[in-house]
């Protein structure tokens, strides 16, 4: 009843091209962002920051990056863990090897390195498609796993093969409490999400989607597959690499090569599929699902005092997790974002069923 766009007339194209043409949506988003920055810090505990909020925001960022590649450009990748690793290790090296390297530049540098790596491993996509490409991107994953544990220079000759980040500092702001870390990653996320949204609703975004949906037709209207695919790889790996650097620097602090293994790649892919391919909010939904669900699954039996052994709980968790994935895919193969859109659609026509 109240959620209607009736009466909101667009008198020019600029207003029609806003990200959220429906005014209610726009206000809701402002409120949400304000809440994320201002209200959350009022009640979140350190544990909540560290176990939920920070990983959630960073993973959402990585998922956002991957969604550009998979959701928008249609190139399935199982190598996102590797791109994160490149970002993290590159940022680490930049900081270690160049004295006085500011954190932000190091993190951005991580993104840039990941971008180069991504473009390199994106080249096969010009020939190989679909599931073949998906499996082929595993080459990037295993190569990076190997490189990180085998090439001493990657870890700056760290004795153990595990590396750790320096004290986080931006222009004299020492970022040490979980709240500060959260605000940092949240700010970065918001900026990148906005940029990404702009990209996908601009010409380049249409090129990506065109390549995804029908590449022959895209070529016929003058889209160069090479440029479209590689630019998607570049933008996507840049964001993923950046997320990787944040994951290493802000979330983990110290990490070993296994922190960015195949599991991570799969998880990210899961996130965007459960969340919704080809939508920015899908990354958020997916990341939330993936961060929250295991915690809920661990805490619930604990809270209701089920006398199960940890092993049993873990196995049952695995099963529930697997079952839920299938369940959500059945309910809505296009992800939580679409489910949400459908709900909104219903709301718009409420109280009528259609």
């Amino acid at each position, binding site marked *: 009843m109240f959620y209607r766009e009736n009466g909101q007339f667009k008198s020019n194209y600029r207003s029609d091209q806003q990200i959220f043409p429906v005014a209610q949506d726009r206000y809701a988003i402002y409120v949400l962002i304000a809440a994320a920055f201002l209200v959350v810090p009022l009640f979140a505990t350190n544990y909540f920051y560290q*176990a939920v909020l920070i990983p959630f925001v960073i993973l959402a960022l990585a998922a956002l990056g991957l969604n550009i590649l998979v959701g928008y450009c249609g190139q399935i990748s199982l190598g996102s863990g590797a791109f994160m690793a490149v970002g993290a290790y590159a940022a680490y090296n930049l900081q270690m090897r160049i004295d006085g390297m500011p954190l932000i530049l190091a993190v951005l540098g991580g993104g840039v390195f990941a971008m180069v790596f991504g473009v390199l491993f994106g080249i096969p996509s010009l020939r190989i498609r679909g599931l073949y490409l998906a499996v082929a991107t595993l080459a990037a994953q295993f190569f990076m796993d190997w490189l990180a544990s*085998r090439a001493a220079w990657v870890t700056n000759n*760290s004795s153990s093969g595990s590396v750790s980040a320096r004290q986080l500092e931006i222009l004299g702001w020492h970022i040490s409490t979980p709240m500060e870390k959260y605000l940092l990653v949240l700010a970065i996320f918001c900026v990148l999400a906005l940029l990404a949204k702009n990209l996908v609703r601009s010409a380049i975004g249409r090129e990506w989607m065109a390549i995804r949906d029908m590449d022959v037709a895209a070529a016929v209207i003058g889209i160069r597959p090479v440029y479209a695919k590689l630019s998607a790889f570049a933008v996507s790996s840049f964001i993923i690499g950046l997320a990787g650097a944040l994951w290493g620097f802000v979330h983990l602090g110290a990490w070993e*090569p*296994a*922190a960015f293994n195949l599991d991570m790649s799969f998880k990210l892919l899961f996130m965007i599929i459960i969340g919704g391919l080809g939508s920015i909010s899908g990354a958020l939904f997916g990341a939330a699902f993936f961060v929250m669900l295991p915690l809920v699954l661990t805490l619930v039996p604990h809270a209701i005092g089920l006398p199960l052994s*940890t*092993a049993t709980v*873990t196995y049952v968790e695995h099963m529930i997790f697997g079952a839920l994935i299938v369940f959500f895919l059945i309910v809505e193969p296009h992800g939580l974002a679409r489910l949400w859109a459908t709900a909104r659609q219903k709301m718009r026509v409420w109280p009528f069923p259609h």
Partner: protein
Amino acid sequence: QAQEQYVPALVYRTGQFAPLGVPWADGKLDYYKLVNARGGINGVQIKYEECETGYDTARGVECYERMKGQNGGAPGFETQSTGITFAVSDRAPGDKMPVFTPGYGLSQSVDGEVFEWNFPLLGTYWTAADSIIQDIMKKENGNLKGKKIALVYHDSPYGKEPIPLLQARAKKEGFELILLPVTAPGVEQKSTWLQIRQQRPDYTLLWSAGVMTPTAVREAQATGYPREKIYGVWWAGSDHDVREIGQGAKGYNTVTIHNTAAKGAVHDAIKTELYDKGQGSAASAASLGQLAHTRGMVIAMLQVEAIKAAQEKFGKDKPMTPEQVRWGFENLDLSEADLKELGFEGIVRPIKTSCKNHIGEDWSRIAQWDGSKFEVVSDWYQADQSVVAPLVKEYADRYAKEKNVTPRDCSAVQ
């Protein structure tokens, strides 16, 4: 109302390494239960809680973060994983949280001046490797010149830990060290063992984990490499690693930090006080005396003793804070007599830690698979300090520099 000491236990009962993780966790729990059954630590009951890591660093860190502040604070973490140790070691000084890693962890964390909060009690990978080399030297009459020794290792920080020591040893003794990494999980090792067949090393060290161990032993069998010439680290030398191979693994050696075959009074106590009453953690009492299970008991015992030591100083009948327990770890002193009283006689050696020395003792011995069980076949070896100590110093200093740690001055600590 009885006082309670909260003790979080990171475990991995699932995942790739569950076969090792399960008895290890059961051993820890059994000992806590025994202590509780006997009235707790000076009357303070242990309130233990498991957290499943699946040997995954991220999940381990999550457990750590969640548990460190609960129930009045955790008295320290035994991470059960090299990766989690790395991650947690960075946070420990800030959180003032002891991290104890008996038989694993960072080899250089023996140095208590740099690593105030780490306690790699009983042994590190360097001491393990050193003992193995000593055993080999004994077999070769003290001369390894011109010999070849291969290290087949899990390609991870864990597998790579012994390399610096082996390199130092190779230089000193004049043997050739062949490094053969195996990519996790190691279900397929044909090329590794073909290389071994080609290069014919005189001995092969195995730094493996999970499925990698039995696969390696089976490949050795399939390529005809004598099992007597293989030495596994202590995480590759549990019954379950070779049980299914049976006779095929006969002769396979492993280094151990405690007396595998021995069953002490504590085993009997656990049997009668827990398992006979149906309160044991493992499925059956048959687990008692198994290598990993016993190791879990030893580890739990060390933790309890550290708490006890802390109580001696800071006051009995109450739970200890992490900082107090840290003091306890640093001032452990278990004599032969103490161990006997605890029922661990003949299982572990006396241990004494200090501000400088966080390992306590670094003796280990070799056990061999006789086709159905592991038998201890060597005497105790102590790691050669002339080799290990400089390495510890070098690596600890490097760590201190990397992390901006200002080493404590132990002469100022009493």
